[in-house]
């Protein structure tokens, strides 16, 4: 464990040094990866740890993004307050949606989360006077003290590292262990007197609020928001990131997000057929490495030990 913490510290320092490269491309990519990585990890709290397949994670991402942006733009709330409001709105949304969803299991759970996220999407899409509808919300300004890509990168890095730290504490707490127990065997967990539904609902809310944080970051990062962010392929994409990196390890989704965004950047500069390549990668992954990248590395390590 200690060794892993040192590795993480080194990684964070390396990430902090990235802006020194003065390459706008890498700073941009780095910010994007951090944001989507947090989004994917938040999803994985449900997917990998609690065993709930949510197909509507984009809803909380969108709620966070629009809450922060609208408060700043329409109500001229100062940035720190608007930013803090995002996870609160995300948790509130997740509370309402989760209240209904946790009653269902498996495929029906996935379908209901999909239905709710589509409701949120449809509202955002149609409420022209507030959200700008299809034309989107443009001209979301950075507060002045964050108004350079390097500064915003540091801000994102700080927020993401802090969020991941909190999430990791949650996962390793007795509460987090309980979630894993629920994943493994919900019925037996119920028998030993645990309120399974309540735990699932809380996990849902935590996941929703961290997704909202990443959404809020995303909105400011891009200076603009479009309803497409909430449409269901977005939910599928973040699921793929989690699977790609490995859904049974904490940092898996982050790795998945990094690999996927980097590949997309590299591929789209050469060809427009990115989905084709992504689809092929995903299919190969499902057949040969169901544990994702980190799962595969773990298998290798176990295999090496076993050979000795």
């Amino acid at each position, binding site marked *: 464990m200690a060794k892993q913490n040192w590795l993480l510290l080194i990684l964070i320092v390396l990430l902090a040094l990235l802006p020194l490269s003065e390459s706008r491309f890498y700073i941009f990519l780095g910010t994007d990866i951090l944001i989507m990585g947090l989004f994917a990890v938040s999803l994985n709290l449900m997917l990998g740890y609690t065993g709930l*397949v949510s197909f509507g994670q984009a809803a909380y991402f969108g709620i966070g993004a629009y809450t922060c942006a609208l408060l700043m733009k329409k109500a001229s709330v100062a940035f720190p307050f608007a930013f803090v409001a995002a996870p609160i709105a995300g948790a509130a949304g997740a509370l309402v949606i989760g209240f*209904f969803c946790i*009653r*269902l299991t*498996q*495929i*029906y759970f*996935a*379908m*209901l989360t*999909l*239905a*709710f996220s*589509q*409701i949120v999407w*449809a*509202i955002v*899409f*149609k409420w022209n006077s507030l959200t700008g509808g299809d034309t989107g919300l443009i001209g979301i300004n950075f507060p002045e003290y964050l108004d350079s890509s390097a500064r915003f990168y540091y801000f994102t890095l700080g927020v993401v590292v802090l969020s991941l730290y909190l999430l990791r504490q949650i996962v390793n707490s007795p509460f987090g262990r309980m979630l894993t127990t629920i994943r493994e065997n919900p019925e037996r967990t119920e028998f030993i007197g645990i309120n399974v539904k309540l735990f699932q609902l809380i996990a849902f809310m935590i996941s929703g609020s961290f997704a909202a944080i990443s959404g809020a970051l995303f909105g400011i990062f891009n200076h603009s928001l479009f309803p497409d962010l909430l449409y*269901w*392929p977005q939910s*599928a994409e973040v*699921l*793929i990131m989690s*699977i790609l990196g490995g859904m049974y390890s904490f940092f898996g989704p982050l790795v998945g997000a990094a690999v996927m965004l980097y590949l997309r950047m590299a591929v789209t500069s050469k060809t427009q*057929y990115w*989905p*084709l390549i*992504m*689809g*092929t990668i*995903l*299919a190969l992954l*499902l*057949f040969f490495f*169901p544990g994702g990248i980190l799962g595969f590395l773990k298998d290798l390590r176990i295999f090496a030990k076993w050979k000795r």
Partner: protein
Amino acid sequence: MFLFLIASGLSLIFGILRVLNFAHGSFYMVGAYLTYQFTSQFIQAPAHFWLAVLLSSISIAVIGGVIERLFLSRLYIREELNQLLFTYSLVMIIGDFAKIIWGTGHLSVSRPAIFKGAVQIFGQFFPEYNIFIIILGLGIAFIFWVVLNRTRWGRIIRAAALDREMLGSLGVNVKLLFTIVFTIGAWLAGLGGALVSPIAAIVPGMDVEIIINVFIVVVIGGLGSFWGTLLGALVLGQVISFGILILPRLAIVFIYVLMAVVLIIRPWGLLGRPLPR
């Protein structure tokens, strides 16, 4: 009725295989593209449209069957999520192939000559083609009902929905059965796409658009329930057309609310049955 044709294929696949097939919309889209392709190839032949419909729906059925046999059948032992994501990867792959082959522009197919006119019913004019589709859809519904309820094959298929292991141990080739069911489901999607081609623009992105509507239909009616799918298609059609008349801005919101409400109250749909544990 298009929704019904496509949704019944999806519902059939889910009912028997327990796989939610995202690629169903892609089958539909490629069905439409192939119809365009075939009609322009056989432009000289009489009744070229019908030939194209036949050929393209059969091609889709074959493609579906091959995909099931080669890939999907290996994933049944895994978690549901893996199957779901595999069909999603198919959406991306097929979508891009369609773009590579047919480009991104709008394509269209002209209506078959026999059904160019319009019929007058209760003082309103209806295009003949649409009437034909409604009758055809009902006909297919009837045929499926007969096959499912009155034949030996239908009994086997219904048994597979209830307990596939038991059926296997009774000496039925379940693997083959799954492939056949998937092929029929894909055929229905391809047929839906082929038949819609004269009255809708064929564009990339129609796969993602249709699949969400089809999901709503089967969820409302009941995943795996045949009459439920018909009911779901009717309900969705009504909600879309009346919703647009009354509250145009809220129509789409209302559709998803309906889906959510049905899932909350009766997750297995209006006419479906709860999944056997």
